């Protein structure tokens, strides 16, 4: 076991983990944060996307020990416990950017990362920016609309 210290959704944590423990399993099982899903375990689907030090990464391809000292944000961390949804989450609801919801936490975190790097993307840049996130349900059109709505701040509360 190894001791890791890191910040998860603003909370400082210190945990003993196996060196091989993937960050997504640490978040889901040790921290009890179940937003990041495991869809493929091969860095393909994007369902496990979180922010590590502000950049979107697939948490099935990061060892927990590699995140030591880092700052992790999951979809849970976008919203204070009793607060309202993050504008990107509201945009996904408003534009019906989800059906079963499995891909949604990853889509939302990839979008937050994309808009941090490029606050006003074109539709083509949105589609390329989300190319690492697969959705089996929506056909992507409403997801793209949701991202463009979030970027133009045309989201009702």
């Amino acid at each position: 076991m190894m001791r890791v210290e890191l910040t998860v959704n603003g909370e400082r944590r210190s945990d003993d983990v196996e060196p091989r423990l993937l960050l997504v399993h640490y978040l889901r099982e040790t921290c009890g944060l179940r937003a990041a899903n495991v869809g493929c375990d091969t860095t393909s689907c994007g369902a496990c996307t979180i922010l590590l030090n502000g950049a979107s990464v697939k948490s099935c391809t990061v060892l927990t020990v590699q995140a030591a000292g880092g700052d992790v944000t999951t979809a849970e961390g976008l919203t204070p416990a009793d607060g309202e949804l993050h504008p990107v989450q509201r945009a996904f609801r408003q534009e019906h950017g989800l059906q079963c919801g499995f891909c949604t936490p990853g889509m939302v975190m990839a979008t937050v990362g994309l808009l941090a790097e490029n606050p006003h993307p074109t539709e083509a840049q949105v589609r390329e920016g989300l190319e690492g996130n697969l959705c089996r349900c929506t056909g992507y059109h409403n997801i793209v609309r949701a991202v463009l709505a979030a970027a133009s701040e045309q989201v009702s509360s």
Partner: protein
Amino acid sequence: MTHHADLAASELVRAEAPLLAHAAAQVGDPQIRHRGTIGGSLAHADPAADLPMALLALGGSVEASGPGGTRRIASDDFFAGFFETHLAPDELLTAVRVPRRPGAPWGYQKFVRRANDWAIVGVAATGGRIALANMGPVPLRAGAAEQALADGASIADAAQLAADGTAPGEDMHADVEFRRHLARVLTRRALDQRN
């Protein structure tokens, strides 16, 4: 080592070695570019990958450091076989060098069927060198096409030779003959793209 996203965004690399910055931006998807590194990609030596092909086209080199010191290995001598390099077991890749070529024409073609995928075939061309991805167990030079260009052949005629001396494999994406066809077509496009 430097993440693909940092390489792609670097003003210095974009100005001095734009082909390398462009190649880094073609890798996978944003999340992969935030994690993957140029050193990891070169040491991994996937023949279908972007950065090994780019390094070979640029005629760059790597530095390998181990208990015996540091040595430089040219890209032409670095790739040993399928996912194998000439790094010794006790060596780490500690630096990557490419010639400065601000303003030099270059072309880059990557054929994929799915978003965020590796090249089914890739071609990078600059400064008289043409490198191919996924046309054999290692990234390869299109030597016959390079020679024809140097001898004054037209782009169309030189590109016809792009698959000579290659040994592509077959998989669910493409058979051998389709890969050879892609190498010729993509080489012509990469050479046309240079100006």
